[in-house]
């Protein structure tokens, strides 16, 4: 029992509620939201050290013992993601202070942002599948409002599609939960894992696992990503960046959690399907990224490629592949926020979206240009930066599992990602400069959060030694299900 575990959910919810009361005081909103994300950051670091020393931390809400009550479980994998989430959230908030505009701030931008963070953190921490659904919904409702906040024509049109897709996938999620409950009689992840290990994962159970896979794929943008490019292009930069960094990652986290802890008995069916879907996602995403000549489109298709690549590591179901997935997941959270903020800054400064109309920005904004260059290399996984390590491990994992086609597609699409992102760099930053010195506004304040994230991606690459011990603990927890089960159910002798 550790009361710290609930705080990453409670802090943003309560801060958000307090903000709704003081709705006129925007300065207070900014201060409180920054304080909330920074305190979650502190708690995540604290909890990570506790997990390192004492093992997985749990909290049984209200003192109800594990399979009967609601349990919160903080294992290293979840805490690493919460740490990355709070870093990215802080940077996006600082960026939003200057770009989001008075209108949106007055209509509860900051409370909604914090509710989104609460939903994301809740999804990472929850220990039973129904609360996973509830936290998903908290996150999604906040995202529905954030995506339509401002009410431009484009936003309204895209948000209708986004909401419709997510409402249907939520219904399917409930259907899957209902079937799972009918077959196993429990909802707690640890208890589910025990029950399925006892009764064996038969064909019917594998079918239910496919239903879960469909639901999480819709949220993660794994193969079923048709809704993603449109809806991530609609909202303003700060919101699009936090969406790209976090929303798909929650789906990926759920896939990893369900298919390493609960449905791990039939990898030749479930994990192979994940692998095929990941390969298709990478190919289609890369084609999209190369085909468009519009900054937002290229970036959104890069989100899709990232999802496919992370799940290629999961599909291999080897320690190396999973290690790569965890590294790449953390890297992807940071670098997707970074690249979206950079792309948004280019659009914000020039007021243009099409690559053909932008050129020669490097003379006016040298630091922006070089940061874009670093982000592009990091996105493609060039050695000293953060994407490299994950890419190595995922490729190794897919090769040891015998999925050579999957690893090969991963490496090939990395090249296409590099090409697509370099296309933005070359056409926006090189060439003839149309603008005079001082004609466009200065990006000084905007560069601060971008610089922070750039430093993060360099630090994650050069200082991989520092986080490797935490990642190793996370992988140990993912590969050995009994660690998780013991931590949750160990206190209850009646199971």
């Amino acid at each position: 029992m550790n009361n710290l575990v609930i705080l990453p959910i409670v802090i943003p919810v309560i801060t958000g509620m307090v903000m709704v009361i003081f709705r006129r005081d925007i300065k207070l909103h900014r201060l409180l939201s920054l304080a909330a994300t920074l305190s979650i950051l502190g708690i995540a670091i604290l909890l990570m050290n506790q997990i390192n020393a004492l093992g997985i931390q749990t909290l049984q809400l209200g003192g109800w013992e594990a399979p009967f009550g609601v349990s919160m479980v903080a294992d290293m994998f979840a805490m690493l993601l919460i740490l990355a989430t709070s870093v990215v959230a802080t940077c996006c908030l600082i960026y939003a202070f200057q770009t989001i505009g008075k209108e949106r701030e007055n209509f509860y931008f900051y409370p909604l942002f914090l509710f989104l963070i609460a939903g994301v953190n809740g999804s990472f921490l929850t220990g039973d599948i129904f609360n996973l659904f509830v936290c998903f919904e908290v996150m999604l409702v906040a995202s529905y409002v954030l995506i339509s906040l401002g009410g431009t024509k484009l936003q309204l049109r895209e948000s209708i599609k986004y909401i419709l897709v997510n409402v249907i996938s939520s219904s399917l999620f409930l259907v899957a939960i209902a079937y799972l409950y009918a077959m196993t009689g429990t909802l707690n992840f640890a208890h589910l894992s025990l029950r399925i290990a006892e009764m064996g994962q038969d064909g019917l159970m594998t079918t239910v696992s496919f239903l879960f896979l469909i639901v999480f794929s819709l949220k993660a943008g794994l193969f079923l990503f048709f809704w993603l490019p449109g809806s991530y292009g609609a909202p303003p930069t700060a919101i699009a960046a936090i969406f790209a960094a976090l929303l798909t990652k929650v789906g990926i986290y759920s896939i990893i959690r369900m298919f390493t802890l609960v449905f791990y008995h039939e990898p030749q069916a479930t994990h192979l399907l994940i692998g095929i879907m990941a390969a298709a996602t990478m190919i289609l995403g890369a084609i999209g990224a190369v085909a468009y000549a519009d900054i937002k489109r290229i970036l959104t298709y890069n989100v899709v490629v990232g999802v496919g690549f992370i799940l290629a590591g999961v599909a291999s179901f080897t320690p190396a592949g999973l290690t790569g997935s965890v590294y790449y997941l953390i890297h992807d959270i940071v670098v997707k926020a970074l690249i979206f903020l950079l792309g948004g800054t280019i659009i914000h400064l020039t007021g243009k979206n099409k690559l053909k109309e932008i050129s020669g920005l490097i003379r006016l904004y040298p630091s922006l240009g070089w940061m874009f260059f670093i982000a592009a290399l990091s996105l493609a996984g060039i050695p000293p930066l953060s994407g490299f390590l994950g890419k190595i491990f995922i490729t190794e994992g897919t090769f040891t599992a015998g999925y050579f086609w999957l690893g090969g597609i991963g490496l090939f699409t990395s090249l296409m990602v590099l090409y697509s992102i370099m296309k933005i760099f070359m056409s926006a930053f090189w060439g003839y400069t149309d603008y005079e010195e001082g004609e466009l506004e200065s990006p000084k304040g905007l560069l601060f959060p971008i610089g922070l994230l750039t430093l993060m991606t360099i630090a994650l690459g050069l200082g991989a030694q520092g986080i490797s011990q935490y990642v190793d603990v996370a992988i140990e927890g993912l590969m050995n299900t009994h660690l998780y089960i013991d931590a949750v159910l160990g206190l209850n002798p009646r199971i």
Partner: protein
Amino acid sequence: METLMSILVGVLFAIGLYLILTKSLLRIILGTSIVGHAVNLLIMTMGGLKKGGPPLLGLKNQTFTDPLPQALLLTAIVINFAITALFIVLCYRAYIVLGTDDTEQLRGNEHE
């Protein structure tokens, strides 16, 4: 009873999906709402329907009705209600701003 409920769930799903596939936004909202009801009934059926006594430990019932699906249902109903309300407001706003509730005409173009 379970068989009857399963058929009802199937019928509700069919109606809901038919409505979701139509062009008018209002029909789509109604469709999502009906699918939501179908899902709620499904959860109820999956937990087992009327088996006998109330789920109280003191009564020593062997054939009690499982209370957990009903607790899940309450949460699901609340969430479904909130999202339907939000969706209706959003579609109304979209109708005002875009001037149409026909999904065919909502596609728009690149130049906006």
